[in-house]
């Protein structure tokens, strides 16, 4: 074996991140069947305020933010003029205060925090929008799984079952202000909690005592991959458009005015795209991984962007870009693994859908 076996901690954008606590399969199963928690404090967190804030943000994303009511959120993407994805983000609309100021919280990927900040600065009117980067000021804890909500309920007075998916609220947690959102990156029900460090530590320890399993980045990756959620920098980046990446459901061309990337997205809607991100199921035990070539009739036609053995399903699965004419369910393809070719078939995404989601 190579000398470089993976350490259990990894450095990620200046943060020391746990890859695993008690084994990836164990953590994964806990989230699918009960509850697990993730320290995702490394993610970027921005608060924005302004009178016409939603109108200004509308220009930066393909999704129609006018559909958002206060205490709702939208998963969406920041696009460059070529409709390439600068980042995938969640915009939490917190509403309008008495003086007419709109307020949002935006959660972005850790590695893209500085890039996103620069892009927002460049494209929002700084005279009208007050921007604050609170990435280092707050911790973010994701509590996920069918039992996550009931575990979290013990620490807040509001009835969490009344919060819908992508809904959120501001409340108090261990005497400190906290933001709770019914969002996540696992394909299960659960919340993400934004708080000050001391309350975050208290929450983590209290949940651990209640039996919520601490989970690392390893399980976070296998969980999101079973749910076919894109990982930025791997499945999507500035060279992929929402149509190609299977994120067409974020594009609301009909109800929106102009936004950055609209022209290319309109063209691609009319002419179609050359490649698409698909789900692959390997036919044997061999695991397709990031960067492995995808073949059809012995020719390289695409590339695997993410792949793993699915802990829940028990077989290897992958996401891969393939030519559009091959991007149909049940299409037979193959993946080259260490010089040999192994059969794979295009399957529906997500690979796994929770029965516990509401």
């Amino acid at each position, binding site marked *: *074996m*190579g*000398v470089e*076996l*993976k*350490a*259990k901690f990894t450095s990620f954008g200046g943060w020391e991140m746990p*890859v*695993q606590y008690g*084994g*990836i*399969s*164990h953590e994964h199963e806990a989230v699918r069947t009960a509850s697990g928690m993730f320290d995702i404090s490394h993610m970027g967190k921005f608060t924005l305020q302004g009178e016409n804030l939603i109108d200004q943000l509308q220009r930066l994303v393909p999704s129609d933010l006018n559909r958002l009511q206060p205490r709702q959120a939208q998963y969406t993407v920041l696009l460059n003029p070529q409709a390439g994805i600068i980042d995938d983000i969640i915009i939490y609309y917190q509403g309008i205060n008495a003086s007419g100021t709109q307020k949002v919280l935006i959660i972005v990927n850790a590695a893209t925090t500085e890039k996103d900040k620069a892009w927002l600065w460049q494209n929002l009117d700084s005279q009208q929008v007050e921007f604050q980067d609170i990435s280092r000021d707050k911790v973010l804890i994701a509590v996920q799984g069918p039992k996550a909500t009931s575990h979290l309920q013990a620490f807040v007075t509001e009835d969490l079952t009344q919060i819908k998916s992508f809904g959120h609220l501001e409340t108090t947690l261990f005497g400190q202000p906290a933001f709770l959102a019914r969002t996540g990156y696992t394909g299960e029900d659960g919340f993400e909690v934004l708080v000050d460090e001391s309350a975050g530590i208290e929450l983590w320890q209290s949940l651990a005592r209640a039996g919520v399993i601490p989970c690392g980045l*390893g399980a976070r*990756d*296998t969980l999101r991959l079973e749910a076919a959620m894109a990982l930025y920098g791997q499945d999507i980046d500035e060279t992929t458009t929402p149509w190609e990446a299977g994120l067409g459901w974020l594009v609301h061309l009909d109800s929106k005015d102009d936004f950055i990337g609209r022209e290319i997205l309109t063209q691609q809607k009319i002419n179609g795209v050359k490649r698409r991100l698909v789900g692959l199921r390997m036919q044997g*035990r*061999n*695991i397709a*991984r990031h960067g492995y070539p995808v073949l059809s009739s012995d020719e390289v036609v695409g590339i695997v962007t993410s792949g*793993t*053995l699915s*802990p829940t399903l028990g077989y*290897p699965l992958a996401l891969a870009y393939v030519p559009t004419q091959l991007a149909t369910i049940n299409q037979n393809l193959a993946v080259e693994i*260490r010089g040999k070719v192994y059969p794979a078939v295009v399957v529906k995404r997500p690979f796994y859908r929770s029965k516990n989601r509401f």
Partner: protein
Amino acid sequence: MFEYPEDLRYLDSHEYVRLEGEIATIGITAFAVDQLGDIVFLELPELGDSLSKGDSFGTIESVKAVEDLKSPMTGIVIERNDVLIDSPEQIADDPYGQGWLLKLRVSDPGEIDDELTAQEYSEQVEGT
């Protein structure tokens, strides 16, 4: 902190070899098992394949890592632990016993002297 039986020899790449006459049994160490985490895939050579010392003889994968397996000796593959191909996670239960990977008929038993003793290997991986 892990066990490294005295009757085995070790590679710094975390394979072990047990030599009995001209038959070498090859596996991976308890340290490697711990570092890898959940083992999900194992690929081994065919019976009759010949391996040179230092050759890659297969692949072991955990959820997050893909690692080559390196042969500690030169020889012909005479047996492989096929149970582990279908249930690679069982390697972790008993890496030095039921979790063996491969048996070779070696061409030069003297090659074993190049490999690390239990104490040397232990010092390398655990610094003790």
